[in-house]
């Protein structure tokens, strides 16, 4: 099993194939529905974003509140397809990877190929297990969104499966 350390550069991404299992150490930024909506609205207005997205990994995740004495609570992936309509501007702003669960549309696959990006699947419905791979959690922005705020997560050997690779090969035979 391949161990990969962040940041995820083009060389790392281009060494990965759909279906491959890796253990990733580095940083994720959480963002789900509402955070995507706000980021894309800011981009549309030409405003400065509260974080630099260049070469970053977006994790579609809204964790539970952090129980006392823990780094984070349960923190598995949410459905990626709901982020499809916001993905183009995020890729254009430089994100290099996305982590979530489930299928993406054909147009997202084409965009991933175009931007030489990558889409990973995280173990779905395994939020308690995944909390064990997280070393630190920090609020970055959009505090008012609660679980939907953007957090940075420092992860160590976090298990990921390549869902769509940089060449647009998908683990799922049929994309919708």
């Amino acid at each position, binding site marked *: 099993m391949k161990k990969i350390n962040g940041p995820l550069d083009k060389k790392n991404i281009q060494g990965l194939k759909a279906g491959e299992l890796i253990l990733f150490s580095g940083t994720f930024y959480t963002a789900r529905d509402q955070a995507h909506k706000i980021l894309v609205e800011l981009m549309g207005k030409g405003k400065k974003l509260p974080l630099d997205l260049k070469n970053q990994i977006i994790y579609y995740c809204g964790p539970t509140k952090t129980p006392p004495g823990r780094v984070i*609570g349960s*923190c598995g992936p949410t459905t990626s397809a709901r982020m499809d309509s916001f993905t183009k501007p995020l890729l254009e702003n430089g994100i290099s990877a996305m982590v979530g669960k489930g299928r993406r549309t054909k147009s997202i696959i084409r965009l991933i190929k175009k931007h030489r990006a990558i889409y990973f699947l995280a173990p779905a419905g395994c939020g308690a297990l995944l909390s064990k791979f997280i070393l630190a959690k920090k609020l970055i922005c959009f505090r008012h969104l609660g679980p939907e705020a953007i957090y940075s997560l420092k992860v160590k050997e976090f298990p990921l499966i390549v869902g769509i690779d940089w060449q647009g090969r998908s683990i799922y035979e049929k994309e919708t």
Partner: protein
Amino acid sequence: MKDISKHIEDLVRKASFSLRKDIEKALEKAYHQEKEKKAKMALGWILENAKIAEKEKIALCQDTGLPVIFIEAGNDVKLTAALLKRVRDAVLGAYKDNCLRPSLVDPLTRNNPQYQGLIEHIIFLPKAKGLRITILPKGFGSENKTQLKMFEPTAQIKQIEEFIVNCVKEAGPESCPPFFLGIGIGGTSEYALYLAKKALLDKIDSPNNDKFLRTLEKRILSKINSLKIGPMGLGGKFTALAVKIKKSQTHIAGLPVGVNISCHALRSATIKIK
């Protein structure tokens, strides 16, 4: 009545941190029977996740669901508005005190009032005694794939089967298979979906009392598993682990069929209060 809040906190914790025993058993069986390497690995993650959640008392899934509660009152129970309020407050208090996710928002403004709101169903059972409270924290990765179809009364069973299998196909890997399916047939539109949800509370290892439905459940399950979606969409033998059907009388002009899918973490817990 003894401190009902404490009982309900225990109930919320049990449903959120621990897999139901029948569900755990089904997942373990699937793990042992699965030959496909990647699907087996994903099932292994699911089982390990359950062990960690149970041991460390953290939520099985970050989506701690929309709490759906079922209150069943026997003939001897004085079910008052005040008692219902205590139950409601206790559920929401338990969510807050146990760091479960405040996932409920206004549907249009998306404003999150933090730990407010739940869905409750009240059932009176004249022949029973005591109070039974059940919580089903329903995650929305699977709830979003709910479907209702109003069939024509002359529809064939085969068409219903195809509809249900297609619901699973559309739900796909993102709704966290292997699934448990609740199906409601009959009633009105909302009642068919209510039955579908309620079917998820039935123990998956106790067979349906209705012989016809039992056979239908088996047939649908086998068709679903021939889809080979599998855990995380990684293929293998198990796209669903159980199909539970409930039926009710319906109108001569209609045949409603409701499909409610649960992810692999089908969580529910029940207490009886005398």
